[in-house]
């Protein structure tokens, strides 16, 4: 209660935020597929300092993924076509979850299936585990029964999938939207209308690169997902579109975040929290640095609670 303490409190902004039914110590999470199962980063940054982490996407059974080459660099970005390789639900629970339970940060498990049933099965099983704070549905997966079209492209299919999953998942359920759409708001609305707790915006944008020497695609599967700073303007636009449409569930902003300024842009555009993806490859300690930079921004701008920034874009 001394005045010096008071003034200290005044200068340190409050960082806690809430998104999709989960309380986070700060708004910075790490993105699925770019942070392994957490443990890999244990010596590189303080996992406890993170708002949360999202695991690699899990499917009911282990998957081996696509043949190499699987990644290539592009201008301010990269393409990947890992092919949703993962250890499967069982191995995840056995080998990865014990560490995650004790790592001191919020854990969202990203999951997917290739049929409705796989989604339900996988989601329900994952939600039942202690130590899983929430689930993030990756709907950018080919729907085997519908000719390989992604589940997440059609608002109707997406709504049905979310509704079905919602019924069996009794934990916070986020849905990660694909940017390969002409109407991100329709996708977000389908999620909100069918009981999702939040939307994660965005997954990778489908892209391609060619090795002119061999005349072959640089990625064995021809197409890959574009991520990194290159996509930030598109991601930010989609977050803002969803926010502006007053979809009644919060948004987690993802795409090309490299520093605190990028993260603040997403918050201003309407994201309640953000995820750092490709940047963890560029600089494995970046998520922790980004938290510090958000804090510095708040101090410099006289923002006492980071939540003041959410949707605070000035227009008009």
């Amino acid at each position: 209660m001394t005045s010096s303490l008071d003034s200290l409190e005044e200068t340190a902004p409050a960082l806690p935020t809430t998104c999709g039914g989960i309380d986070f110590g700060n708004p910075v999470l790490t993105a699925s597929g770019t942070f392994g199962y957490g443990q890999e980063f244990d010596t590189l940054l303080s996992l406890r300092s993170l708002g949360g982490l999202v695991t690699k996407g899990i499917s009911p059974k282990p998957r081996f993924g696509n043949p190499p080459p699987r990644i290539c660099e592009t201008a301010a970005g990269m393409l990947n076509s890992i092919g949703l390789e993962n250890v499967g639900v069982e191995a995840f629970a056995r080998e990865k979850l014990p560490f995650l339970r004790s790592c001191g940060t919020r854990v969202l498990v990203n999951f997917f299936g290739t049929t409705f049933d796989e989604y339900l099965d996988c989601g329900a099983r994952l939600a039942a585990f202690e130590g899983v704070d929430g689930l993030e549905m990756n709907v950018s997966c080919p729907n085997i029964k519908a000719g390989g079209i992604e589940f997440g492209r059609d608002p109707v299919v997406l709504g049905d999938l979310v509704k079905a999953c919602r019924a069996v998942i009794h934990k916070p359920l986020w849905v990660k939207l694909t940017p390969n759409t002409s109407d991100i708001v329709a996708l977000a609305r389908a999620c909100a209308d069918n009981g999702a707790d939040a939307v994660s915006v965005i997954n990778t944008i489908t892209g391609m690169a060619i090795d002119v020497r061999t005349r072959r695609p640089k990625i064995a599967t021809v197409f890959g997902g574009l991520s990194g700073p290159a996509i930030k303007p598109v991601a930010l636009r989609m977050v803002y579109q969803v926010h502006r449409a007053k979809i009644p569930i919060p948004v987690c902003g993802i795409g090309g975040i490299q520093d605190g300024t990028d993260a603040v842009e997403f918050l201003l555009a309407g994201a309640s929290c953000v995820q750092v993806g490709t940047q963890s490859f560029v600089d494995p300690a970046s998520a922790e640095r980004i938290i510090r930079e958000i804090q510095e921004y708040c101090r410099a701008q006289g923002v006492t609670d980071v939540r003041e920034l959410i949707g605070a874009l000035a227009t008009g």
Partner: protein
Amino acid sequence: MRYFDARVIENRSLGGGYFVLRLGGCEPLAGSRPGQFVMLRGDWGRDPLLPRPLSLLSVAHEGRADLLAKVVGKGTALMERSPPGSRVSVLGPLGNSFPVPSADVTDLLVAGGIGLPPLFMQAEAAARLGLANGSEVLYGGRTSRDLVLLGEMRGLGIALRLATEDGSLGRRGRVTDELEASLERWRAAASTQLLRIMACGPREMLWAVGRIAQSHGIECYLSMEEQMACGIGVCLGCAVAAQTRPYRYVCKDGPVFPASEVMAYATAASTSRSEGGAQ
């Protein structure tokens, strides 16, 4: 494995696009083993974006580490132009290593072009153990300009057999010709000493080395390269297409693999490629 800032202490051009970066501040690399690598990034903004994998050439006391690189694109070009004092971020040491030199075994260390660093470090390790004269370095390149650090290797007291495609230095031909000749010599000598091959270089060379080892029934280790993003096993980008599943990763299961495990690649890579979902 650590992520830290280091500084370029010296940047020595060897001609032909080859250069040795001497870094200071690399205490976390102490104890690194031959074959291990680092992910390196300079202070160069977003172009290129990702760090670049480079094998360790040599790690000394007081946080000194040497890397040997060759300019092939943007990242290596920027490294080549980094003056002393430049800041670089380093993640490492990463990956596994070659088997430890042993008095019972003669190691044939086969290097193709810029594949030299891990074998140089292996030779250095052999020299430290007093085993340099139990091994040979077979080193090949396009021309004499592609054969670098020869004085340093001779200084280690290791036998050095050179090959260039244009005959400008050493045998005219490929390093694999030199390898065949070496094996021939060993066979002629009717030595009972165990032989072991370790190799790093262009992929085609590695397959050729692997096939030679196979045909002679000799233990063989290949240090592989693949495109990398993370270097620590999380992006799953550096999968090696061997016939075994699940995939193995250069960064965390390698870069050094028993040849038998990865020789399947040559075939696997030519099988048809289906289009699949992302990530």
